[in-house]
């Protein structure tokens, strides 16, 4: 894992010539300007909390958006509800079970241009060992020399077993959860 950035840097230098003609280009994620959050409703109270640790790998060339690929890995134990004791609880078995399933992952299978600055993304979302096909619109715009990808994906938490036992009660925590993300990435 530690080798990855160094390796990526070496590779990207070595492949610089190739990249100029290649259709898709791996971008480097600017973590400080990126975020992944989940919006849920608890007794009808909308709450948005961030995942503090995640990794996004996006290959994207504005000239050939259809060749783009994306992969996002989210550290489920890093869900930050602003209260340490809650954060500890949410990593437990009934919710994310982070000990057994440390990562939630999205891997794109197709990315299609859908008008200016818009892409339609389909792919596989895996949370807590359960995989589902998802598709969602994604916007992309250049900002400060980087590409900023933004979108939101509504999911049903119970389809992924997030919230087991007494937490299955959707009157307490609604089934629908919206995953919101913003990834800033550049060469």
């Amino acid at each position, binding site marked *: 894992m530690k080798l990855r950035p160094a390796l990526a840097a070496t590779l990207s230098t070595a492949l610089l010539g190739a990249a100029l003609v290649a259709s898709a280009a791996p971008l480097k994620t600017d973590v400080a300007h990126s975020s992944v959050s989940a919006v849920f409703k*608890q*007794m*009808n*109270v*909308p*709450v*948005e*909390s961030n995942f503090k640790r995640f990794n996004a790998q996006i290959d994207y060339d504005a000239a050939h958006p259809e060749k783009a690929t994306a992969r996002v890995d989210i550290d489920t134990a890093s869900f930050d*509800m*602003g*209260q340490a*004791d*809650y954060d500890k*609880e*949410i990593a437990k078995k009934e919710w994310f079970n982070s000990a057994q399933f440390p990562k939630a992952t999205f891997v794109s299978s197709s990315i299609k241009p859908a008008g200016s600055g818009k892409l339609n993304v389909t792919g596989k979302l895996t949370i807590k060992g359960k995989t589902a096909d998802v598709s969602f619109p994604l916007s992309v715009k250049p900002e400060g020399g980087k590409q900023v990808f933004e979108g939101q994906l509504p999911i049903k938490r119970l389809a992924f077993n997030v919230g087991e036992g*007494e*937490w299955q*009660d959707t009157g*307490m925590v609604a089934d629908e959860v919206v995953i919101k993300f913003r990834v800033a990435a550049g060469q």
Partner: protein
Amino acid sequence: MRDQQHQEQEQDQERYTTTAIVLHWLIAVLIVGTFTLGLVMTDIPGFSPTKLRYFSWHKWAGVTVLLLAALRLLWRLKKRPPALPASMPAWQRGAAHGLHHLLYLLIFAVPLSGYFYTLATGFPVVYFGLFQLPVLIAKDPALAETLKGVHYWLNMLLAALVAVHVLAALKHQLIDRDGAMRRMLPSRSH
């Protein structure tokens, strides 16, 4: 008979208005309930639906206290309360007024500190699960930590002042027998 009627009339005049009496006791019951619920819910370890339910109820009750406090203040500004017993020494009158001012201040400050505390933790209040109340400040964990302490200590101060208030009322009723407490009790004649 005439004397008795006269006396009753005088007693009626000495009472707070029915509106003031109803508001006083409603707020009193809600404060005791909300305070107790606050202690119970924060004592539940970890994370459970019951705990989250109690938190929501606590917030709804707190907002209700705040609304009733606003009504009460408006009513208080409109209607002068009945005079204190003439037998009360000046220092007791001063103490009573000071205490009442503080209690009025706290029935606003306690719910408001809780309201801003929950906003700072990123959990807005949806009154009875139906109406989202204004989000006046953004999520701010450091501020939340401060407001947690502020809310707690304002509550402890309120509890102490309520204890003094109750003891003073009982002293008027049982020792001085000067009718001061009766002013806030519902009239027994009807």
